[in-house]
């Protein structure tokens, strides 16, 4: 195998694993948009606050890992439910910009709240995962990436099954399709809004723990959220398969681009390559690869 090809495979494999972790976070965004039409600009901050809780539990209060993980999960579920109840329910039917501004405001509040109430500075979020990478031919895979990729894949499949096959998932899609008709079928629409936000809480908690381990926990953890936008624009704002494919594309493109371009420009390619792709995608397919199309019968 040529050295060139080996390098490419290496970049691809890391891109895929990282991409799956982007997909997981993007899934949180998609769930909420699909079910409630709200655009959540605080998705990255959800991840960050979950990271704060897990790292806080572990490093500040000295809880065992499984307790810290469970607390972060439970707290994020409660946070999702609570947020829908207290803030977002009141914004139903208001102009989209109201919800956008509200979530942007929420993002700022959360960025202040984490360091303010839990800890300031950067804390590690150690997981019992070995450091030595798996080396397999050209592949060079850090175990955390493998765990992160597999955990993400598992949850993506589980959520996908939930939406496509389960009765609650069908009800949630019905709510997404037409709220008033869903109400007329006896579906308690607001409960499903709450459920969507709670599911986002779960996804964010997992993302917070995985990314927290990779990057360390501080306010900058919220920057992971910026990867969500290219992912969902590429895949479609309301598509779960889209979140998966979009995440993979972004993961692969940024890794491959960084691998070839960074040596010449001294780094930073990862941060802008996905956005170049996003803007190109917006010009070609504004509703994404899998985005809901308006059905027009002939």
């Amino acid at each position, binding site marked *: 195998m040529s050295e060139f090809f080996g390098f490419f495979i290496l970049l691809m494999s890391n891109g895929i694993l990282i991409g799956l972790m982007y997909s997981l976070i993007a899934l949180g965004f998609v769930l909420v948009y699909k079910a409630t039409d709200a655009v959540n600009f605080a998705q990255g901050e959800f991840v960050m606050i979950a990271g704060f809780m897990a790292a806080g539990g572990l490093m500040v209060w000295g809880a065992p890992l499984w307790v810290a993980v469970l607390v972060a999960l439970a707290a994020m579920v409660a946070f999702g439910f609570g947020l829908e109840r207290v803030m977002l329910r009141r914004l139903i039917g208001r102009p989209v910009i109201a919800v956008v501004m509200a979530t942007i405001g929420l993002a700022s509040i959360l960025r202040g709240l984490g360091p303010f109430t839990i800890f300031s500075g950067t804390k590690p979020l150690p997981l019992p995962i070995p450091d030595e990478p798996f080396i397999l031919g050209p592949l060079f895979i850090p175990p955390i990436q493998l765990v992160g990729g597999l955990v993400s894949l598992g949850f993506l499949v589980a959520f996908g099954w939930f939406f496509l096959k389960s009765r609650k998932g069908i009800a949630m*899609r*019905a709510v997404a399709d037409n709220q*008033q*008709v869903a109400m007329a079928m006896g579906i308690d629409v607001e409960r499903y809004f709450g459920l969507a936000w709670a599911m986002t809480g779960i996804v964010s908690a997992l993302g917070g723990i995985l990314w927290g381990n990779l990057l360390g926990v501080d306010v900058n953890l919220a920057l992971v959220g910026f990867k969500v936008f290219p992912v969902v624009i590429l895949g479609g704002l309301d598509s779960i398969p889209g979140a998966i494919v979009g995440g993979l594309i972004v993961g692969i493109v940024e890794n491959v681009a960084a691998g070839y371009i960074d040596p010449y420009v001294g780094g930073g390619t990862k941060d802008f390559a996905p956005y170049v792709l996003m803007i190109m995608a917006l010009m070609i397919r504004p509703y994404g690869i899998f985005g809901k199309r308006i*059905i027009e*019968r002939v």
Partner: protein
Amino acid sequence: MLTLNNIEVIYDGVILVLKGVSLSVREGGITTLLGANGAGKTTTLKAVSGLLRSERGDITKGTIELAGQRVDRLPPHAMVRRGVVQVFEGRRVFEHLTTEENLVAGAHIQHDRAKVREGIARVYGYFPRLAERRRVESGYLSGGEQQMLVIGRALMSSPRVILLDEPSLGLAPMLVEEIFQIVARLNKEQRLTVLLVEQNATLALAIADHGYVMENGRIVLEGAAASLRDNADIKEFYLGLTEVGARKSYREVKHYKRRKRWLS
């Protein structure tokens, strides 16, 4: 079994749409509510099904009773649990769900999976065409199939009373005939009580046993379907509606009002 007493409905706090509507729907019967566009028929159904609130409408006066119990101001899901389900006008399927998923969504309040399967089989029994199209995304069904689907979907909650809003709207006469025959069969075989809102009086009165005529938010005429069929006013009123344009029909309505005043 369903009674509206002097219902008044206001939208947005100021727009008075129903001005004291009273009507009763007999158990096991088909009652029809006729009237021109904008008369307030849909609003009446939404007042019953609890869906007014989602449109910032409010029942400001009067009561609604189901089998003797007050049900005004209940949320929609509570009404569905009590066996009252509304089918919207305009064939509002869940477009991105398949035919069968639409039916599953309609069975939301039914927890027993076996009953859901039975329900689906029953709907396919009444509407065989839906069975053929079960895996098709419902946004791509034909208009007639979509109308069948929304009725079938409503049946999935095992209702005692179905509120049908203009099922004939925009469909070919043959299809309308077919759908009305199925509604009549459901009424007989499943003992389903029907409140049928229509602009097409001829069709509605053919299957109904009792009827009301609504105009401008008020009930202006009531009677057994047979007597309404022979009523000269109704004939004129609906000639004006179905066969000529809006201006003519307005004049006809005025004429009808004059006659009515003169008659009463």
